[in-house]
């Protein structure tokens, strides 16, 4: 019973799973759709619309057994046809217009075995596929409904099999859902679930404070406002280690950061723990490699380079860098917290004689022009939210030659390691390899790993049973309000 109002920072514009990549789509759509697999806040992969599955033919075929008695919100039954339709659509013409298709290119075809069984034929083994089936483009959509109403209508009137069904959507304002009575799993406690799109963090916090919303989901609440919320007797901050990691990556091609010694020195010059404790209010963990603790491939034994300004100075001297050397740090223009962090970094660098200037760049320009074209300064911000919680997703993009996010470095050994783990289906071997990659990257000091930030939720105390999800993909069927 009751209505929960959630503040979400962005309107994805379309509720069709194939159309978008935004985490803010997922934070709503997780309640509307189901995938064949499901991954909850604990990050464990569990059955979703498929009750079980087996990997066959050396990992090139996966057979799914589908759940019985599931219906879409429009009453249409869920069955193998729906699964096939979903993936044919994703890999076909409709999917081609969106960004999701490229994530699922390892699927060659989907074969209906019987009404309750489907086979996925893969063109090569894909270790992350099962995880990918738990989210985004792989959400199962209703074939009859879509054919009846057309693609355009579906964008704004989503229908799935999830615990909440769609009520209304107003672009840029919000979306309303209500409990779906025939949900196959634990039916929702809430009768209504409303989302409001509020992009301005302090506005979202003001709404939370004034009771306009009950829950603010990440990445919204600025660290600077945490005390404000904590001081309010009606509100709480709930956090969990998140997937988002922050680093300042180096230009390994030119500038003083060409030298590995210098890079190492710069890392050691910065007291990352202080930054986390002071600026981030402890809502982060210092990292040794470019991944958080929940990531597959994380090595708990790996230690960050120590904070040691003396040794940093010495290394700089050895590398022949005179005091007064300059570096430019490019950061995203709209990230106030990281701007503070970077200023602290710059201050620390200043203490070892490196003068850092900070250049805020309009975010999209930075991401789509400056970094890919290799036009950054000596250092640049990279924040990465690996929603698959698999280091491959991060590492391949960051370190493999020719990748968009890797404009400067080219290392055959690294490339080989990355390729090698990709084709493995043996989880342990893969994990080992991923850890090796992390170590290798750290040895080469390819970036200054800073921290992995908690997912920070602001919540009204009248909400009960809320479990924070690291990746904002909240399924709110177990939540209730007073």
């Amino acid at each position, binding site marked *: 019973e009751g209505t929960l109002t959630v503040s979400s920072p962005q309107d994805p514009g379309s509720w069709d799973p194939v159309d978008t990549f935004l985490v803010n789509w997922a934070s709503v759509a997780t309640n509307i759709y189901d995938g064949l697999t499901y991954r909850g806040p604990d990050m464990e992969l569990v059955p979703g619309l498929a009750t079980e599955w087996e990997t066959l033919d050396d990992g090139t075929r996966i057979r799914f057994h589908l759940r019985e008695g599931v219906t879409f919100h429009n009453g249409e039954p869920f069955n193998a046809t729906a699964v096939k339709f979903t993936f044919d659509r994703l890999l076909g013409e409709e999917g081609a217009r969106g960004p999701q298709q490229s994530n699922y290119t390892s699927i060659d075809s989907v074969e209906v075995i019987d009404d309750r069984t489907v086979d996925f034929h893969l063109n090569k083994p894909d270790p992350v596929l099962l995880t990918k089936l738990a989210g985004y483009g792989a959400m199962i959509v209703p074939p009859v409904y879509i054919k009846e109403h057309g693609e355009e209508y579906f964008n704004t009137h989503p229908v799935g099999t999830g615990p909440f069904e769609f009520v209304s959507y107003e672009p840029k304002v919000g979306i309303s859902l209500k409990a779906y009575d025939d949900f196959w799993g634990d039916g929702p406690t809430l009768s209504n679930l409303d989302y409001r799109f509020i992009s301005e963090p302090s506005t979202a916090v003001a709404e939370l404070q004034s009771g306009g919303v009950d829950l603010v989901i990440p990445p919204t609440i600025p660290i600077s406002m945490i005390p404000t919320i904590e001081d309010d007797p009606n509100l709480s901050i709930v956090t969990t280690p998140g997937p988002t990691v922050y680093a300042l990556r180096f230009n390994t091609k030119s500038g003083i950061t060409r030298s590995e010694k210098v890079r190492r020195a710069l890392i050691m010059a910065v007291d990352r723990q202080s930054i986390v404790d002071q600026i981030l209010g402890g809502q982060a963990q210092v990292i040794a490699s470019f991944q958080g603790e929940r990531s597959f491939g994380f090595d708990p034994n790996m230690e960050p380079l120590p904070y040691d300004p003396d040794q940093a100075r010495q290394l700089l001297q050895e590398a022949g860098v005179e005091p007064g050397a300059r570096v430019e740090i490019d950061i995203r223009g709209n990230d106030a917290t990281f701007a503070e962090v970077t200023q602290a970094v710059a201050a620390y660098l200043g203490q070892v004689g490196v003068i850092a200037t900070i250049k805020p760049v309009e975010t*999209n320009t930075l991401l789509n022009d400056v970094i890919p074209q290799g036009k950054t300064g000596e250092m640049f911000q990279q924040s990465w939210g690996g929603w698959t919680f698999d280091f491959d997703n991060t590492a391949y993009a960051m370190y493999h030659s020719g990748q968009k996010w890797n404009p400067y470095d080219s290392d055959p050994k690294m490339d080989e390691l990355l390729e090698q783990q990709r084709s493995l289906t043996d989880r342990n071997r893969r994990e080992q390899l991923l850890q090796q990659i992390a170590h290798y990257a750290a040895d080469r000091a390819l970036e200054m790993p800073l921290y992995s930030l908690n997912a920070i939720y602001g919540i009204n105390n009248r909400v009960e049973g809320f479990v924070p999800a690291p990746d904002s993909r909240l399924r709110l069927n177990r939540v209730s309000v007073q």
Partner: protein
Amino acid sequence: MKRVIQAIFVVIAVSLVVAVAIRLTGDPALMIAQGATNITEADLERIREGLGLNQPFIVQYLQSLAGLLTWQFGNSFVGGTSVTLLINKALPATLALAFASLFVSIAISIPLGIRAAVSRGRWSDQLIRICSLVGLSFPNFWLATMLVLLFSITLKWLPPSGMNGMQSFIMPALTMGIILTATNVRLVRTTMLETLNAQYIMVARAKGLSERKVLYKHALRNCAIPLITYFGLQFGTLLGGIVVIERVFNWPGMGTLAFDAVAARDYPVLQAVIMILSLMIVAINLLVDIAYGLVDPRIRTK
């Protein structure tokens, strides 16, 4: 007639500037594919194809112009929503806010400006002029936040954001109103001072009219021309500043639309928004010309 042709020219020129400028800012395909791993040039090409970006510029531009005539602006690059749908929601929201702001500012600055003019050189004049400067000293987002703190969080009188009924107009309009007041008070005071020196004001007094009637009936209407001209110009400024205010108050208007569209390089939305806003500004200026005639018979009969 000449004015209308000039107005059309302006709208076309603006749309051309926008169309060219936005294409210099970056590739929307990249923007859409941002989160995807292993994106290849072929994938990007595929997305561009889907968005219709492979057509020659002139075709795309003409399509967007035609859109203005038919009020069909195609689909947003983000999520493929119909831009017309977005605009139809956002335009009234923004216009309502803009007019409310203008109204607030006028409602504040006319009595204050007249007061200052009447008591020229005395302390109340100085006080009004100094106070009106406050609006010039704090940025709109800061003032907005202060208002939210006061009215929504401390007093809990007004909703901090969103567009829900009359109540939600108060704070955004007040913020913009305060900002505009500094210049407007000055303007009203100046024009009023000139008008008050006019002989017909003395004549009105010699008739035995009350001071109120003299000021608000006889003097004010004679100040109307410069005031209307200025308020008309201000409308443009207002639409510019509204981006920030809409963000702070989460107002589902054209500013929000434009801001998101720039961030996502959502050409169809951005182009539609700017063209419509320019059209609005141009239209307001035309209206101002017409209003001249309404308030001042000398212009009407010429």
